């Protein structure tokens, strides 16, 4: 009985791990795609971390969670980071090029302009801070 339960638990964990791995792979693919499109957005290496934030005017979680988190981050970090906000309804070409599938989506670029992290969906302040620190 317990053996069967453990086996099922292990199988479920395995399936979840496969899902997480697939999600990670998707993130890597998005980062590679973003890398190709950075030059169109930044003329030169930015010399400081950049957050590329894709949003739309009627995205509710963008207004209630993502934008406040980004503003908090800006007030904490000052001019040590740069925020580029892109309205996906105004720039659908950019959203398509960067592989943005939903909003909010945030890309974190290091000082050399290399995309290092992508957050599909809301990324809270703590997570953004952690990612910025590890750039």
């Amino acid at each position: 009985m317990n053996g069967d339960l453990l086996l099922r638990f292990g199988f479920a964990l395995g399936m979840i791990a496969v899902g997480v791995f697939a999600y990670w792979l998707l993130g890597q693919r998005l980062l590679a795609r973003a890398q190709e499109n950075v030059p169109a957005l930044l003329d030169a290496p930015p010399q400081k971390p950049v957050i590329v934030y894709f949003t739309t005017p009627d995205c509710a979680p963008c207004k209630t969670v993502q934008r406040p988190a980004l503003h908090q981050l800006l007030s904490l970090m000052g001019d040590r980071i740069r925020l580029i906000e892109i309205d996906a309804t105004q720039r659908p070409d950019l959203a398509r090029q960067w592989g943005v599938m939903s909003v909010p989506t945030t890309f974190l670029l290091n000082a050399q302009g290399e995309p290092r992290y992508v957050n599909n969906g809301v990324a809270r302040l703590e997570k953004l801070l952690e990612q910025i620190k590890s750039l």
Partner: protein
Amino acid sequence: MTTFALEKVDHAALKTNQLTIILLNIVAFILNQPLLAAFVALVMGVGSALKAPGFGFVYSLLLKPRGWMKPDVLPDNPEPHRFAQFLGFLFMAGGSLALFGGANILGWALVWVVAALAALNAFGGFCVGCAIYYWLARLRLPGFTKQPPGGIIPGMKPKGSA
């Protein structure tokens, strides 16, 4: 005839529905409880009949009032989401029948398919059932009249661009 008029759809309610289905399906599998899988099928079936997310009550009665989940209202077509839930119901009902009939591998495979597709929707923003709906609409099948919101891949969560 296809139509382009969009309605307001709260994607937070849809996401709650998907997350609840994933959780209950995994618990049903781990505990080897076909009854729980049948319960999920029943709720999805009732939701399909009522034209609402089956586990939407978890959102409206528990998560939303406490502020644990914020509304995410987007211009979208509700019909493809209802169709997707109905497809999920069919899979879950088939899975439950298979489990009660002793075909455990087939039964749990169908339960996992529903959980996987719900996860793809909840975490990846891609609704396979909706994509099938739009595909059938392109084939002009009667009853499938809606077009996907502009500028998105059919089945993807809208970016609020309509």
